[in-house]
């Protein structure tokens, strides 16, 4: 009977997976910047208080997400305090998105209670989140793939 020592093989595979993971994490940070920049530069809506645009957040769904969301919410709350142009309010609520143990993701959102109206009223006349996701999906995928490739190739 012949035995094969695959210790180095399994170590190598574990190292490869770790590098893929690191590349993906780095890529998601860049992708978040791309998505947030794209969405904040939209001309789909004009805005009155500036709260929607200023509280727009795209960030990886990692351990730091909650604090970034809290900061963005505070921005919306600050801009809407005392604003009388409309009766919109700052809003932060659970997204309902839950990642599995090997899943990664980026959340694009903003923190006003009329965000959904912008996306849907008058057949999406002022929609921006959906279009931003559609517009950035392909370059985002390419960006992440590039980061993983760089990490793996060292």
């Amino acid at each position: 009977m012949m035995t094969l020592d695959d210790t180095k093989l399994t170590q190598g595979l574990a190292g490869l997976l770790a590098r893929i993971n690191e590349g993906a994490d780095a890529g998601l940070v860049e992708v978040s910047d791309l998505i947030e920049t794209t969405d904040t530069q939209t001309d789909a809506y004009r805005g009155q208080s500036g709260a929607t645009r200023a509280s727009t957040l795209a960030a990886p769904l990692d351990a730091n997400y909650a604090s970034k969301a809290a900061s963005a919410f505070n921005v919306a709350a600050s801009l809407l305090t005392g604003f009388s142009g409309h009766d919109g309010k700052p809003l932060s609520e659970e997204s309902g998105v839950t990642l599995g143990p090997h899943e990664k993701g980026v959340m694009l959102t903003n923190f006003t209670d009329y965000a959904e109206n912008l996306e849907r009223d008058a057949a999406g006349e002022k929609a921006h989140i959906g279009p931003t996701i559609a517009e950035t999906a392909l370059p985002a995928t390419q960006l992440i793939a590039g980061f993983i490739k760089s990490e793996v190739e060292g």
Partner: protein
Amino acid sequence: MTIAATTYAQLATASEGAAVRAALGSAASIIPADKLRTFTDAQALPARPFIAYRGGSQSGNRRDGIRAQFRWWIYDDARYGYSRINALIPLLIAAYPDEDALSDCYTVFNGASDERPDAAIFQMPCRSLTFTAFTRS
């Protein structure tokens, strides 16, 4: 034809959209979404239910192919709730088979929005269907 023109015509004039037009009762109930703002009262809107088309973002390039989102919004009178809207959904989806339905692109159905009245259009019950069209590279 542009992707928007092709995907609009799929329901407005093409044979694949015949079941949708039959269910609507009139091809005049198929409109571009920007036309919604021109109706100053609900009675002037097209015969209900009606559907409104909005072209979305495009990405990609000519070498690898272009992907373009588009969305159909289905509206009806409040007295019908969402029953006729929901009955239209499978007909719209069937008008865009995943492969080879259109001459210069293929489409994928991405999903339908939840039931929610449109505050900007007379609180009419409304749902939207999102598709992505891909040109062949």
